[in-house]
């Protein structure tokens, strides 16, 4: 009787609850959709299914870690044995409802093929395959290159899920002791690049195969180019005897800029890689120090550190040296120190180090010149952007010794990249060689 009395009210509640959903579904435009269906402002949960192959556990661990380090999804780590029971038989569908209850918005399934892996991302909300593709993995397992190919697959899957490619298939150059070292973006596969000479300020060429650094010898410090594939090295003859430091390549890979001693100070100069003998001056410091050039993504501007105002500040200029602007907040008579600028890959931000209770990493928004302090613990220096334009690697003493750390510029989440003492002067590579894909598959195909 009571129930009957409440029937109209219950019906009304059901209708009112269902109405917005119906309206929302009607409002959802048809057409191209990037990424997964999930609530705004939340990181979608992702479950990576066990990979049934030799070293499948390594593949799953690498993919899970890459998605986690990307900071755009929440990886729901479940026991492999439990998940095996949830893997559908051939021709059957996932129990999407169950995965939804586990908090997943997406399921990642990786299946071995003859020459690599087939990766699928399932959209749990709409209960179908979001995207699938096959990735050739040619490198011998479990080499560094094999790991990079798995990283490449993870980066693509992150793009399918979030619309933004991951940054796992990249490496970081750094200096330890007097040598240049290299490490994968996840901290694995650390190896020494130079031996036996004091080398500083390593920098990636955009092709990811060549690097430049400053090498100390009998004629002072000179810039050396190093081919990572062949191991061949050559000194840039245009670098005069004395001081030649902080090299950087232009985004098109055609030019090299560095700081050299001139007119009683340090000036930034540039040379074409095709004609390294012809050196062009970029800064007019009039006896002051101008170092640490960093190109804008379009290559038309350069950010650099200059002491022309009395103390080190960050400036930007056109790449031909004109149109110089002081970027950082200048205080007359102040004793601030701002240096090591790094222009973000999307061109919106410049990261640098500044004195704020010891050196700290700052982010300056070029649109409104607003500054955000990213770090506050220990001494934090020399930021360098990941190719995703979101993460930064920097040197920090927060663990008691100098180490490389990675920070998510949006959430502030930190992770330690290196664990042996004395790592510094990091430079994050661009995306390394493109992912090998043998065939294209359908997008948004109903399961």
């Amino acid at each position: 009787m009571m129930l009957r009395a409440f029937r109209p009210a219950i019906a009304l509640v059901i209708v009112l609850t269902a109405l917005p959903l119906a309206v929302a579904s009607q409002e959802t435009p048809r057409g191209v959709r990037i990424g997964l269906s999930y609530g705004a402002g939340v990181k979608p949960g992702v479950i990576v299914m066990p990979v049934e192959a030799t070293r499948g556990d390594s593949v799953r661990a690498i993919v899970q870690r890459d998605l986690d380090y990307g900071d755009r999804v929440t990886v729901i780590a479940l026991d492999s044995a439990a998940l095996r029971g949830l893997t559908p038989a051939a021709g059957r569908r996932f129990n999407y409802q169950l995965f939804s209850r586990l908090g997943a918005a997406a399921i990642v399934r990786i299946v071995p093929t003859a020459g690599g892996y087939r990766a699928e991302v399932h959209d749990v909300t709409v209960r179908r395959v979001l995207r699938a593709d096959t990735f050739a993995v040619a490198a011998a397992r479990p080499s560094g290159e094999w790991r990079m190919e798995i990283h490449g697959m993870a980066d693509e899957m992150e793009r399918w899920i979030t619309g933004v490619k991951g940054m796992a298939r990249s490496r970081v150059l750094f200096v330890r002791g007097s040598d240049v070292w290299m490490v994968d973006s996840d901290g694995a596969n650390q190896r020494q690049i130079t031996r036996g000479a004091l080398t500083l300020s390593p920098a990636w060429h955009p092709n990811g195969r060549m690097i430049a650094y400053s090498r100390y010898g009998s004629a002072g410090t000179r810039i050396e180019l190093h081919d990572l594939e062949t191991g061949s090295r050559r000194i840039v003859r245009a670098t005069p005897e004395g001081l030649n430091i902080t090299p950087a390549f232009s985004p098109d890979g055609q030019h090299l800029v560095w700081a050299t001693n001139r007119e009683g100070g340090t000036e930034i100069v540039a040379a074409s890689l095709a004609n390294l003998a012809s050196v062009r001056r970029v800064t007019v410091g009039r006896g002051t120090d101008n170092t640490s050039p960093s190109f804008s993504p379009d290559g038309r501007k350069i950010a650099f550190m200059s002491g022309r105002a009395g103390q080190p500040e960050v400036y930007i200029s056109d790449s031909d040296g004109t149109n110089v602007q002081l970027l950082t907040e200048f205080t007359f008579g102040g004793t601030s120190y701002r240096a090591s600028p790094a222009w973000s890959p999307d061109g919106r931000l410049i990261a640098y180090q500044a004195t704020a209770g010891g050196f700290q990493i700052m982010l300056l928004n070029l649109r409104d010149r607003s500054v955000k302090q990213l770090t506050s613990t220990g001494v934090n220096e020399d930021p360098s952007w990941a190719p995703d334009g979101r993460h930064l690697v920097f040197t920090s003493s927060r663990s008691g010794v100098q180490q490389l750390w990675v920070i998510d510029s949006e959430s502030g989440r930190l992770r330690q990249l290196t664990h042996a003492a004395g790592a510094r002067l990091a430079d994050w590579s661009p995306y390394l060689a493109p992912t090998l894909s043998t065939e294209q598959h359908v997008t948004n195909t109903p399961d």
Partner: protein
Amino acid sequence: MPRRGARLLVALPLVVAGCMATKSDVTVLQQDIMLVRAEAAQSDSARRQEIQRIMRSMQSLTDSMSAVATRLTRLRADVSGRFSAIEEDTRRLQELAGQSQSRMQELRAAVESRVPAPTTPGSAAPAPGPNQLYQLGRDQLLRGSTAAARTAFEDLLARYPEADVAADAQFYIGETHAAEGNAEAADQAYARVASAYPRSPRAATATYKRAVAAEGARRTRDARRLYNEVISKFPRSDEAALARDRLRDLQ
């Protein structure tokens, strides 16, 4: 024979007389020498004294000179230090002025956006001010929307040709063309900066950019002419320093 005797008689007195003269002369000479020696001795002593006096004076003078030189060195170092300090302060002031100018620009744009501007005839919406248009153009340029940025700058020049930011707007029209790879249009826009706003600091930059573009296009004669123009018209600018370097390489 008697003639020879007579000749001897004539010659003898002459010879004797000659001998007599020589002897007196020697005596006189001896006296003279003694006198000279005495004078010389006296003179050397006086000269020595004179020299010593002069040397004392010179020593004193040297000491004075040294003291003056030391003072001058100190003064020079002091002046140099003060000049450096003044130079540094000037640079700081320039930086501050530059930054303040940038802030002022943003503030002007913000004020214009709040104060109702005069409406254009035939239009209900208030017309944007020059600083608003300039800021809009800069924002669009920063985003990479070169065409939209150019429209804003061109609109600014059409509505407010006498605005403070007119030279900047004309310069950035050149920048939008350069960003699009349209070298010819960029060159024309930069040339317009130098011709229409010759006193603006943008004129040096625009002329230098024209020179760099000419050098890149291997129009060496044009490049030299434009570099020289930068040096002669804006000798104290950064662009002049850059142009001197480029000219050295073009020799």
